[in-house]
């Protein structure tokens, strides 16, 4: 007697009660929450489409106030503090993030739609680790091998995306503060809530007013931050399209810029690969965070001799993926972040079908409300298809094949992007050969989508420039 049915797993929802949502949020400027001067916008739970809160829409005047506060804090307090004292504040922030981890995780999943398992096990712990790592650098900057007398740049204007809201904040804020800069940060329009909770954490940490300022808003708010003449350093993570605009906007100024942009990573599977782990890596590579990952392994390149086997195994594995309520601890794939993003994923998937690729998704029931998209693979994809070239930023995988290592490299590098790449093979010398040839800032060999505060991350080519993480990440925030 088989026992199918037992492991349907009853719902295991994480409690929302740890989060104290306010009806509306202001801007965090000069250590205080203040009213915005230009109205507000709503942030919704993408899994239910319910409005979570009203959030202030920062305008030019708000950005101006925030930059002025950051400048004051820079001149009067932060740049004058010895590194060891800055470090203590940053360590304190790291600890508070750990203490309030569950609250942050639930809030992140509510606002973003990502599964609680990921916000709980990946986003929040990594954010804390990032602050912990860079806190330690604050009083050791002369040892970073970047120059004999590294100095902060001043006010950093930072614009972050919606896919890893708090983690991307940590990637930006932690090194900036460690290096002695102050910050004006604009969180993504659809995911402002954990940044606002972070503002509260700054208050709890007694961080001097103005060192961190959070200005919520949409694209225009971000452009105001980037374009403000009082900003000395611009850091942006997001689409290549917007990154390009920012690079043009800052042209001719003295602003230092780092950009972490899109990707269309190839994940190369050779016939001698540890296939079971490769399949897991493929799943991790494209379905982690609903595929809303700039370094997602969205192009699977399989050696022809094992292509059928790998795709069969992948299909079987995909049948066990659970799509649904982000707050359910057993959910593997949560909600797409916004209606707009869902429409984009649908459009590109339809283009894939129209171009003749074969589409497949495991049978899965999607919730009636909210923005959901079933995990999807396309087989029979060629390099010329849009789904093999454009960043979909969703749970959609394009499968291509290759015959020789040289062909694999050629196809993998045949993109304007260059953020990450994956290689799966059991042969050591081939791993090194491939790693050398991948035109990508991060190469995962026999693993995928691993992140660590000590490990530099960033792209080649149109995936942007500058590195975040590790010793290399300091350089973006120092005059050396």
């Amino acid at each position, binding site marked *: 007697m088989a026992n199918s*049915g037992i492991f349907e797993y009853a719902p295991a929802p994480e409690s929302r009660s740890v989060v104290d949502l306010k009806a509306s949020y202001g801007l965090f400027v000069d250590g205080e929450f203040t009213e915005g001067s230009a109205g507000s916008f709503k942030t919704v739970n993408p899994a239910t489409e319910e409005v979570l809160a009203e959030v202030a829409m920062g305008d030019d005047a708000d950005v101006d106030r925030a930059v002025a506060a950051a400048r004051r804090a820079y001149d009067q307090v932060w740049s004058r503090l010895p590194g060891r004292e800055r470090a203590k504040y940053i360590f304190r922030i790291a600890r508070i993030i750990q203490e309030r981890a569950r609250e942050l995780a639930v809030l992140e999943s509510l606002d973003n739609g990502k599964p609680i398992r990921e916000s709980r096990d990946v986003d929040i712990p990594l954010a804390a680790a990032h602050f912990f790592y860079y806190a330690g650098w604050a009083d050791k900057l002369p040892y970073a091998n970047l120059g004999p007398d590294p100095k902060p740049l001043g006010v950093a204007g930072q614009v972050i995306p919606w896919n890893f809201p708090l983690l991307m904040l940590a990637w930006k804020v932690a090194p900036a503060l460690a290096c002695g800069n102050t910050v004006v940060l604009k969180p993504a329009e659809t995911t402002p809530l954990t940044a606002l909770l972070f503002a509260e954490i700054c208050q709890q940490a007694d961080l001097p007013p103005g060192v961190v300022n959070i200005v919520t808003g949409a694209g225009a708010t971000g452009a105001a931050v980037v374009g403000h003449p009082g900003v000395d350093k611009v850091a942006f993570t997001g689409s290549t399209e917007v990154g390009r605009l920012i690079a043009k906007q800052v042209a001719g100024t003295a602003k230092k810029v780092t950009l972490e942009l899109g990707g269309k990573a190839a994940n190369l599977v050779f016939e001698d690969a540890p296939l079971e782990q490769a399949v897991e890596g493929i799943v991790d590579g494209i379905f982690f965070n609903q595929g809303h990952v700039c370094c997602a392994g969205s192009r699977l390149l399989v050696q022809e001799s094992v292509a059928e086997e790998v795709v069969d195994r992948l299909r079987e594995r995909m049948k066990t993926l659970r799509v649904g309520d982000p707050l359910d601890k057993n959910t593997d794939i949560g909600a797409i972040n916004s209606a707009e993003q869902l429409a984009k994923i649908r459009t590109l998937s339809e283009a894939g079908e129209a171009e003749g690729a074969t589409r497949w998704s495991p049978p899965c029931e999607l919730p009636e409300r909210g923005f959901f998209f079933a995990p999807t693979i396309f087989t029979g994809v060629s390099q010329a298809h849009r789904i093999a070239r454009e960043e979909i930023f969703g749970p959609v995988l394009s499968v291509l094949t290759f015959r020789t290592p040289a062909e694999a490299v050629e196809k993998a590098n045949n993109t304007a992007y260059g953020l990450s790449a994956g290689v799966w093979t059991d042969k050591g010398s081939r791993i090194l050969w491939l790693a050398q040839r991948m035109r990508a800032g991060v190469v995962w060999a026999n693993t995928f989508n691993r992140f660590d505060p000590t490990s530099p991350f960033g792209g080649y080519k149109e995936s942007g420039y500058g590195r975040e993480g590790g010793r290399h990440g300091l350089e973006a925030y120092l005059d050396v």
Partner: protein
Amino acid sequence: MTAQLALDEAGLRRLLHGLPPVDQVGADARAAKLGTRSIKTSAKAQALDLAVRMVDLTTLEGADTPGKVRALCAKGIRPEPDQPDCPSVAAICVYGDMVPTAKAALAGTGVKVAAVATAFPSGRAPLAVKLADTVAAVEAGADEIDMVIDRGAFLSGRYALVAEEIAAVKAACRTNGHDAHLKVILETGELATYDNVKRASWLAMLAGADFIKTSTGKVSPAATLPVTLLMLESVRDFRAQTGRQVGVKPAGGIRTAKDAIKYLVTVNETAGPDWLDPDWFRFGASSLLNDLLLQRRKLATGVYSGPDYVTVD
């Protein structure tokens, strides 16, 4: 596949070394991720009962006596004397000399007798002795034989020797019209690498194992979730290639209901629901049963129970 494949040294080596390799870190990460599944309410109640039904309640001590074995059998038949809805365990697992005692105690209950054989746990005895050990247990009424492979031979690459021995024990299980099920213990704690675990799994299946079992319980580490995951992948792939389904038995080190549920989740998501049955998945354990019973009570009554409320073995 099995039929065409001669179990000669070269053929076996080609086959076993041609299996896709295993990346240890990736396998560990996968197992850890499966361990984060959260099983609640009705699903948990069903899972606990299923786990009870899968237990091979085991005593493998030099100090075992007929009295001890009879007590264990009573516990296995009715783990919760005051709760008739509590299922029996799958089998009682004992040394060969205890088979007659167990057989008598379990008569008519459906609970099986499993006997360890083949110079358990080391397996260091001449083949004739191992076969005699097996035949004695089978003749005494053992329904299942838990044999150990020759790890020394395996680690030195003498795969045919290991396979022949398994095949010979399998034949011994069928002595005089008996048909004892053969569980082959790989003793994964001595195999050192996941690649070896995978190869040994395939080797045992090719040689005729009805079940592959992780450990004797006498070597540390005994069963682990990643090793069980690998074995579940192996039985799944073996069935896909040969059509023959083989069971899996992690043994040793599984002490809590929480652990047992992680294993069941792993069975469900790796080999699939076909294996979620005592015919195809077992836990070799002794103390696990009481924790399953405590959790069962907690679910039924809503209060935490204590060791005084379940029976000692």
